[in-house]
């Protein structure tokens, strides 16, 4: 267990500096097939429990800004810009969900949904976010693992 935490911390740190890490697929070398991404970005499965937190956290996924989600009813203020997350794992495969979170535009042309693992986003990024992804590879995998628990 301690070793796992340690490894996680390293990946997070690397992710934040935007550098490639052996075993982690960098934002520029992600491969899509029809909007989906087959392989885990980190090479391992994510942690659904952490993913649940990333989903709600305003400074991380902030997915609740746009998506209602019954599983997180206790959290205040669910937005309604995007579809409900209930049962999302029945509608999409793991690879498709990963693709949507990494780069939503590959699945939904022109969508308002941010691309969470991409370094080239809109013009004029605030300096401290320039060239950086919104989520780290590990956080993406955690969110994907969490989404996979949302079945009807």
């Amino acid at each position, binding site marked *: 267990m301690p070793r796992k935490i340690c490894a996680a911390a390293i990946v997070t740190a690397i992710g934040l500096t935007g550098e490639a890490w052996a075993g982690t697929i960098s934002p520029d070398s992600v491969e899509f097939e*029809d*909007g*989906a991404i087959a392989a885990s970005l980190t090479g391992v499965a994510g942690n659904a429990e952490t993913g649940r937190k990333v989903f709600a956290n*305003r400074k991380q996924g*902030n997915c*609740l*800004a*746009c998506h*209602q989600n019954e599983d997180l009813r206790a959290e*205040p*203020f*669910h*937005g*309604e*810009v*995007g*579809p*409900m997350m*209930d*049962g999302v794992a029945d*509608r*999409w495969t793991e690879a*498709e969900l990963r693709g949507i979170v990494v780069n939503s535009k590959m*699945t939904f042309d022109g969508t*308002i949904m*941010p*691309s969470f693992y991409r370094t080239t*986003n*809109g*013009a*004029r*990024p*605030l*300096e401290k*976010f320039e060239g*950086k992804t*919104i989520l780290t590879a590990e956080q993406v995998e955690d969110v994907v693992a969490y989404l996979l628990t949302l079945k009807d």
Partner: protein
Amino acid sequence: MRQLFAIAAAAGFIAASAQAGPGPDEDQLEIDGLKIVTEVKAPDDHPLDVIYSGWRFRTDETQSLQMDDFENPAMVAVEYGIELWDTPAGTSNKSCADCHGDVEDMAGLKAITPKWDEAAGAPLTLEDLVNRSIKEHQGGEGWKWESAEMLAMTALIGMQSRGMPVNVQSDGPMADWVEKGKDLYYTRVGQLDMSCANCHEDNNGQYIRADHLSQGNTNGFPTYRFKWQGLGSLHRRFSGCMKNIRAQPFKRGSDEFTALEIYLATRGAGLGVESPSVRN
């Protein structure tokens, strides 16, 4: 996959598509007997069907504060504006009132600014006009964009146009500025990669987290915001919206923000001036 999505949509999972939110309410704005237009049928070439003031998207509590000048928290600043209007200053040692008379003579100005200025060869915002007069006529240094003085004065002058329809020139030399503002409005910016249109055109009426999205109209500025605990300029609001999507805002008073202000004013033409409005 597309198909799956379509099926999900058909099954009603996509409960919250662009039209499903609570939208604007039916309330009507009247301040001390003065009716203010908060809803205008949009012209045919407009991206929206009906143009609504941001007031229509606020809660009843917030709305009511703007319906009574005794409750409107912006009125403290307006009082300060009156004081400034009557105070001699600068090398001329004259007050605004000495040259302009009653501030009521400024009625109509807010509704048509930014306005084209031949001498400057550019459109001038209300802030620009105030500062030019202070520098050229009063003999002072001018006020910072977001200073208490500038906010008080633009609130006071803006208030003289309350209820008048927003009517900023969009043709002639202003046409290029409208275009430039429109480009900015539809350009995706920031790490979150969104344009103004993504929120205010495509999703107005919806909640985004705790915020009820309006059409982002400009007729209420300067605005008293609870979040700011005071008045703020329109360019401050632009700046906040850009930072929220992790974009580097343009500077207050920059050509970019002036162009956006002009474009938004033409988009919201016909709405009644509400300055100083109250928002959360």
